[in-house]
């Protein structure tokens, strides 16, 4: 805690030059910092790593820019967040992967860990955004547009379908699909957290059942940078006024549990070593 000098030189200067901070404020901020730092012995590196490991999608940055600009103009940003009046938008990055040896690629599984969703928030909408790269391989079919179909895994009842013009399919772009129905009856796991979400995607040619190779349409996920990975965007409305310290507490908890898991692993390794000896 001593070495974690979060108080910057400018803050120190301010404190020296001006009034001393109120003892209560100083005590509570120190407690908060101690809670934050005591949860991990290598906090500084961990914190830096965490930030740089997460690359925000352009879509999330544009949401932030649009609404913060609206706020600066004195407009109520919730007005812009569709009629659903959501005030929280969470993006979950796809954890699925394509088998590079599988050819042609007829179906894809998109997986999302949505366990971080809070039950304190009322979900009001959800969409899946899949990036389609430009593909030179696309041949314009004579039988009409492509038909993109999204299903929940373990179900053959389509969740969302939309057509894609063959000419548009040559250009890169984001395919947006409404997956709100999937959330309406989505079960929670034994821990009370929402279970992971799984979708599968297939594309057929026109009205036929002929499934198209997804690689031809630029949907191959192999070697994609973080920003081109599919995201599940969930719109929510806070049931009560959010407090910044809730976020801090969640962070501390998640770091704490990570440390516990590490310690548990270390304990198991020691036990195994002792048994071998």
């Amino acid at each position: 805690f001593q070495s974690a000098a979060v108080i910057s030189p400018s803050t120190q200067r301010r404190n020296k030059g001006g009034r001393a901070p109120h003892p209560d404020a100083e005590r509570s901020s120190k407690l908060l910092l101690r809670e934050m730092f005591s949860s991990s012995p290598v906090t500084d590196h961990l914190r830096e790593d965490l930030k740089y490991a997460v690359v925000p999608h352009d879509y999330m940055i544009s949401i932030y820019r649009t609404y913060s600009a609206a706020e600066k103009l004195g407009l109520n940003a919730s007005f812009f967040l569709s009629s659903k009046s959501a005030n929280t938008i969470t993006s979950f990055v796809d954890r699925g992967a394509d088998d590079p040896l599988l050819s042609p690629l007829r179906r894809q599984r998109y997986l999302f860990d949505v366990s971080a969703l809070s039950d304190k928030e009322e979900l009001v909408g959800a969409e899946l955004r899949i990036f389609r790269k430009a593909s030179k391989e696309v041949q314009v079919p004579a039988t009409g547009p492509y038909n993109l179909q999204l299903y929940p895994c373990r179900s053959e009842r389509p969740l969302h379908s939309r057509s894609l013009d063959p000419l548009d399919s040559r250009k890169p772009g984001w395919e947006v699909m409404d997956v709100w129905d999937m959330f309406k009856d989505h079960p929670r796991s034994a821990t009370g957290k929402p279970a992971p979400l799984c979708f599968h995607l297939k594309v057929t040619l026109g009205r036929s059942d002929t499934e198209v190779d997804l690689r031809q349409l630029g949907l191959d996920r192999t070697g994609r940078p973080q920003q081109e990975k599919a995201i599940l965007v969930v719109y929510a409305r806070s049931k009560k006024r959010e407090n910044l310290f809730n976020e801090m507490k969640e962070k501390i908890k998640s770091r704490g549990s990570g440390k516990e898991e590490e310690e548990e692993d270390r304990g198991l390794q020691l036990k195994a070593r002792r048994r071998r000896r």
Partner: protein
Amino acid sequence: TALNNRHGKRHGKKTKSRCSKKALHVNFKELGWDDWIIAPLDYEAYHCEGVCDFPLRSHLEPTNHAIIQTLMNSMDPNSTPPSCCVPTKLSPISILYIDSGNNVVYKQYEDMVVEQCGCR
């Protein structure tokens, strides 16, 4: 006479300003919160500072209770403290951050910027 007695001011001493909105620049990096807040890294939050003394100005939108308390204070400062200079109107800001599951979240946080100060 009552005013001078109330504050016990000496001639030439600088008077404390009346309750109003003052600058408060918040830098999330200085707070050590830049590990989870992506944007903004700083913003103008403002704060309320100054005295709520008799007579209260209408723009401070005092509550009836604040008016009574201020009056009582003006009559006998030892019996009652002056009313408090606090935010009476706040506005939200947008924050883009990383949650405990490493997901990027946009959230509109209420009550982050002081728009107006008053006596309560």
